C-alpha cells in the first residue's frame, strides 16, 4: 500500500474535509477545512471531488515521504511553496511522487491555511462520518490525534489521474469588506454599536485559531446586557462578549453559546476571512439575504467548474497565451472529456 509518511510538520497540521455533519446536537463541533476554496482547488488538481479530506497546514509547512508506490498530490492556499527532492515545484500544479521521494511544504506567505490533497484521498476510516480532526472531541485524523512526525497516512493509490495539471486560478473572492447578514441578536446592541461595527476598521488579533478569531478595534456596546440563554452557533457567527470586542466563530467552535451574536459572515466570504493573518485590517458590510444567496450560488458554481479550468502541465504556457490560441478547450476536452465551452 502507498503511504504518505510525515517527516515533520507544524503542531496545527491536521486532516480536514467538508466537516462533520449531524452531530452538533450531541455537542460535537463540525470542524472541516477553514478555507473550502483552497481545499477544492487542491482536490481538483488530483482529480478529487471538492470535499475530499486533505492535510490542512496552519502557518507552518512540513515534509513528507512517499512510501510504497506512486502518488499524485497537490498543494493550494496561503501562497505556500513546495519542493520535490529539493527542487522547487510550480504553484498550483499536480505533483507526482515516486517511492522514496521527499516533498517539502513551505510556510504560509500570503494567508494562513493551505491544503495538500492526495489523488483518490486517504484510506483512513472516518469517525462520525468525517476525517476532520477535532481536538476536544478526540475525533478524526489518525484516531483522534493531530498529525505528527512518524505518522503514516495510507492512500487510495490506485486512483491515479491521467496527467499532471495546472490550475491557473486564484481562490474566488475580491479584496473587499467581509459581507455579513445582521443578526441573530443585533437587537442586543445600541444603534451606535451597529454603526461602528459596519463602519470601523477592526484588526485580526494574534488570538486566531480554528475555534475563533478575536478582533481588536472599537468596543461594541450592548443595549441589554451580554448574557443570553445559550443558543445554537453557526460558522461565521460574530459574538460580542462583555469586553465589547467581537470574536468570529470558526469551524472548531462550540455548538452553543451564551453571548449575543451581532452578525454572521456569509458562507461565500468565510474562507477569505479565514486567510486573514493576525494584524490584518478587516471591515464588515451588511448585505441582504438575496445577495448572500447569490454569492453562495456563485461559489458553488466556481467550485464545480474547477476541474474544467485545469490545463495540462506539460504545456508550460500562460493562461493568456492558451486563451489567445484557443488551446485550453481542445486539450482539456481531449484529456478530461469536458466540453470546451468555457473558452468561447
Amino acid at each position, binding site marked *: 500500500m502507498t503511504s504518505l509518511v510525515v517527516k515533520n510538520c507544524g503542531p496545527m497540521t491536521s486532516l480536514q474535509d467538508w466537516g462533520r*455533519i*449531524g*452531530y*452538533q*446536537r*450531541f*455537542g*460535537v463541533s463540525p470542524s472541516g477545512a477553514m478555507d473550502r476554496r483552497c481545499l477544492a482547488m487542491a482536490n481538483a488538481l488530483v482529480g478529487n471531488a471538492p470535499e475530499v479530506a486533505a492535510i490542512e497546514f496552519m502557518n507552518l509547512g512540513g515534509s513528507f515521504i512517499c512510501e510504497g508506490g506512486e502518488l499524485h498530490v497537490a498543494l493550494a492556499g496561503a501562497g505556500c511553496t513546495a519542493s520535490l527532492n529539493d527542487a522547487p515545484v510550480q504553484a498550483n500544479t499536480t505533483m507526482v511522487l515516486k517511492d522514496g521521494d521527499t516533498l517539502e511544504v513551505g510556510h504560509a506567505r500570503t494567508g494562513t491555511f493551505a491544503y495538500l490533497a492526495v489523488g483518490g484521498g486517504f484510506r483512513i476510516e472516518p*469517525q*462520525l462520518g468525517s476525517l476532520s480532526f477535532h481536538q*476536544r*472531541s*478526540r*475525533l478524526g485524523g489518525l484516531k*483522534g490525534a493531530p498529525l505528527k512526525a512518524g505518522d503514516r497516512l495510507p492512500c487510495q493509490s490506485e486512483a491515479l489521474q491521467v496527467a499532471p495539471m495546472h490550475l491557473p486560478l486564484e481562490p474566488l473572492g475580491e479584496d473587499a469588506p467581509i459581507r*455579513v*447578514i*445582521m*443578526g*441573530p*441578536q443585533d437587537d442586543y446592541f445600541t444603534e451606535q454599536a451597529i454603526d461602528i461595527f459596519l463602519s470601523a476598521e477592526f484588526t485580526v488579533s494574534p488570538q486566531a485559531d480554528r475555534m475563533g478569531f478575536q478582533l481588536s478595534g472599537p468596543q461594541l456596546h450592548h443595549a441589554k446586557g451580554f448574557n*443570553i*440563554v*445559550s*443558543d*445554537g*452557533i*453557526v*460558522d*461565521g*457567527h460574530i459574538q460580542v462578549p462583555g469586553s465589547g470586542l467581537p470574536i468570529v466563530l470558526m469551524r472548531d467552535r*462550540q*455548538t*452553543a453559546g451564551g453571548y449575543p*451574536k451581532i452578525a*454572521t*459572515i*456569509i*458562507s*461565500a466570504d468565510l474562507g477569505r476571512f479565514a486567510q486573514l493573518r493576525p494584524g490584518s485590517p478587516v471591515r464588515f458590510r451588511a448585505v441582504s*439575504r438575496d445577495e*448572500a*444567496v447569490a*454569492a*453562495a*450560488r456563485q461559489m*458553488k458554481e466556481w467550485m464545480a467548474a474547477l476541474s474544467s479550468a485545469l490545463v495540462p502541465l506539460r504545456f508550460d504556457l500562460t493562461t493568456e497565451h492558451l486563451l489567445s490560441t484557443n488551446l485550453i478547450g481542445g486539450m482539456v476536452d481531449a484529456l478530461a472529456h469536458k466540453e470546451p465551452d468555457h473558452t468561447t
Partner: protein
Amino acid sequence: MVQTPRFLPCGDSALTVEFGSAIDPELNGKVLALDALLQASPPAGLIETVPTYRSLTLQFDPTVTDYGALARQIEEATNRLQPENAIGTRWRVPVVYGDEYGIDLEDVAERHGLTPSQLVEIHSGAVYRIYMIGFLPGFAYLGGLDPRIATSRRTQPRLKVPSGSIMIGGEQAGIVPMEMPSGWHLLGRTPVLSYAPERDPVFLFAAGDEIVFEPIDASRWDALEKAALAGEPVAEPVRA
C-alpha cells in the same frame, strides 16, 4: 395554542427558531417537538438541526432552499407540535458521592446547613431533564435541581475536573463527559461515559432524556468503571 416563534437569521445557511427566552421545560418541549418533526420529515435542503434550551437552529443549503421557504414550513408545522411527546428515555446513573469522588460535597452541604447525606438525598431524589447537549461532546445540561441546593459557582474555576463528575452550578446540574475546566461544584462521580468515540452508541444521552441518580457504594466503582471502559453503557434505561 402554540404561539408563532421568532425567526432569527444566522447568515445565509442557517436560521434559529426561538420559542422564548427562558430556561423552561415547556419551551424546551416545543423545541424538541419541532426538532422531532423535522427529523421525521426533513424539508428539502435541510442539513442539520441543533436543539438548545429555548430555540432550534437549522442549517440548510441556501442553493436548495431558503430562509423564507423554511420559515413558512415551520410556521405551519408549529400548529402540529406535540411537546408532551418530547420526553425521551429516563436513565438511571450510578454515582459515588463524596470523598475523592465528590470533593465539594461537604463544603456545599455546610453552606446550606445540611449534612452530606441530606445533600445526597436531595440531589439524588430529583428527576433531571436534559435540556440540551453542548459545550463539549456529550455534556448534558440538566434542569430540575432542587432550589434548596442551588449553589453559585466557585469564584476560582478549576482547570481540570475529571470525566464523570456529577456537578452543580447555580441552578444547573451536569454530567462531565471528559476532563474539562469548570467552576461548578463536584458532588460525586459516575463511571458512566456519556461520550465514547470508540463505542456504539458513541453518545448515551439526547436532549429530552431524563436522568435519575442512584447513590452507590465506592466499593462498586472499580467493577463499573471497568465495564464502562469496555464499552458497557453502565447507565440503565428505566421506566418513567
